């Protein structure tokens, strides 16, 4: 099931600004026809050297942050190309939520549609959170979607915004297609009224 209700997990701090989707998943890996396996290519140029070996300094492969389900990022995360491979690869890698200072529009929406929860928090909070986790990566963060609340390791609670419609979809695991197809009669009536039926 895709539904997202609550999540308690460790996090990986990657406090960079303007991480574009080319960095999340470089275009040369877009030639697949399935979503599975994209996690291995996530942040490829940050993680792998020219020989295709994992770099020693790769945060994403360090044992310290193994099993993290929350990514912590900076400003304007996910800018650039609209490729949905970005949320897919993040999810396939194991992330279920991203806490950032801000998100690029298209990425934000793509993430929600793929049941990856983007959470925007104030800059000072995100910075402090990243430092705390950096010092002790075993600390967990709890996300409660129904309450729109994040509980940080120091028990500080922060409210986050999410569109009411998207929130319901996430909580119920309801995707857009099921939602829209439930309105098929209206769609057919619209087509009929405007002569947009298939008699072309």
């Amino acid at each position, binding site marked *: 099931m895709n539904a997202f209700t609550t999540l308690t997990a460790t996090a990986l701090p990657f406090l960079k600004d303007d991480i574009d989707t080319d960095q999340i998943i*470089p275009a040369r890996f877009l*030639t697949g*026809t399935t979503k599975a396996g994209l996690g291995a290519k996530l942040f490829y140029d940050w993680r792998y050297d020219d020989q295709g070996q994992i770099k020693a300094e790769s945060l994403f492969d360090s044992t310290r942050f193994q099993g993290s389900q929350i990514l912590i990022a900076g*400003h304007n995360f996910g800018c650039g190309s609209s490729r949905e491979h970005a949320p897919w690869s993040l999810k396939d890698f194991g992330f279920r939520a991203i806490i950032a200072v801000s998100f690029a529009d298209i990425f934000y929406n793509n993430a929600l549609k793929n049941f990856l929860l983007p959470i925007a928090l104030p800059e000072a909070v995100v910075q402090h959170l990243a430092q705390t986790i950096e010092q002790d990566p075993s600390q967990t963060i709890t996300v409660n979607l129904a309450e729109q609340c994040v509980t940080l390791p120091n028990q500080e609670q922060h409210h986050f915004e999410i569109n009411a419609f998207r929130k319901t979809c996430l909580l119920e695991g309801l995707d*857009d297609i099921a939602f*829209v197809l439930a*309105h098929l009669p209206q*769609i057919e009536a619209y087509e009929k009224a405007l002569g947009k039926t298939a008699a072309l």
Partner: protein
Amino acid sequence: MSAPKTLYEKIWDAHVVHQTEGGPAIVYIDRHLIHEVTSPQAFSGLAARGIPVRRPDLTTATEDHSIPTTDRSKPIEDEAARTQLATLAENCRKHGITLFDVASNHQGIVHVIGPELGLTQPGMTMVCGDSHTSTHGAFGALAFGIGTSEVELVLASQCLLQAPSKTMEIRVEGTLPLGVTAKDVILYIISKIGVGGATGHVIEYTGSAIRSLSMEGRMTLCNMSIEAGARAGMVAPDEVTFAYLKDKPFAPQGEAFETACQRWRELKTDVGAKYDTQVILQAEDIEPMVTYGTHPGMAMKISAMVPKKDDFNTLQEQEELLAALDYMKLEPGHPIAGTPIDVVFIGSCTNSRMEDLRAAAEVLADKRVASHVRALVVPGSAEIKRQAEAEGLSQIFLDAGCEWREPGCSMCIAMNGDVVAPGQACASTSNRNFKGRQGKGSRTFLVSPAMAAAAAISGRLVDIRTWETHA
């Protein structure tokens, strides 16, 4: 009398099928364009749900992103690309979708063939799984890029879930100075408002300088709206638009065309309608532009000096600048003109149309590309390729020492084997200068076609207005 509306509001209102309470609207989509990269997972999603494509008649497919631009009679070497193309062909066959593949006369970059075939029409809602779908807004259509889940949604329902956008007017008044093209106008706009300047908005470009642009120029302009963060960009249709569309294969024909034109003439922002945001610029302030950094907002006049730290106020902007200049191997405070170039790419959905190729050919005629420069000219579509060959442009390119390729996205996204080598500098007519966009470690300088051609000859970035006198 109903309240005055903007062009965007007119199109939006005409396409709302259902407004959910407190949520997005279900919006009807008139035309869906698909290509090999962002559609396979959508089709497999449909298959998993066991549902058909609802309106294959409103869906059109082409191959562009991952196809080689070299000899098409040879099999495709890259296995992943081959699988992707075969998957698209199979999906189109299975669902009865028209596919313009490399064997057809109409293959090309999705945003080039839509207008060229008359699939793009004023007042339509159009989507495609590619951010530069905003290109089609040049015809007064509401066109935007969508992700693969949305591709699946549109295939399944012919609708999209969308919240209305805010509206932004960008008015450019006056006469564009010599040497200034639509590409320079849009780079100038993005440098002014920033890469996030139009976030959440649909831009409508207005003013006498915009009206004076050809359809090709308007497409270049709308194409890069997304680089300012906009959802879409549009230009209200006028006689220039109608003249372009007349007799296009998928446009209404004969009397139906005249009736359509009457309807299309209504597609303009009413007097008294309000935009949420307004930007007013003077055409005379614009010069030929070039990017110096790692996003399209980092653009400057070709005659200016590379920005210095003190030109920016915030620490973040300063750090961003220094990181970008370091990557681009540029010196703050030095002229950007004169920067050595290794590769020139003339192509992409931004600048690969006849007008662009003519502008490049005019510069390259009877000249030679500098011996150390590799210059690629990639037409946007098979139709453009034929026309350029018939006009003798391809011969000019070949005589100058350029490579003349088959149509496709090519070095704009570098996923078909056409790549810029690490560290190399590329003067490119495409739309994105992100780190590694044209190949790992590639350094991209975005310019107009004429500026790219002049850079190819000089082997350096040059000012198109003065370069020959300085040569």
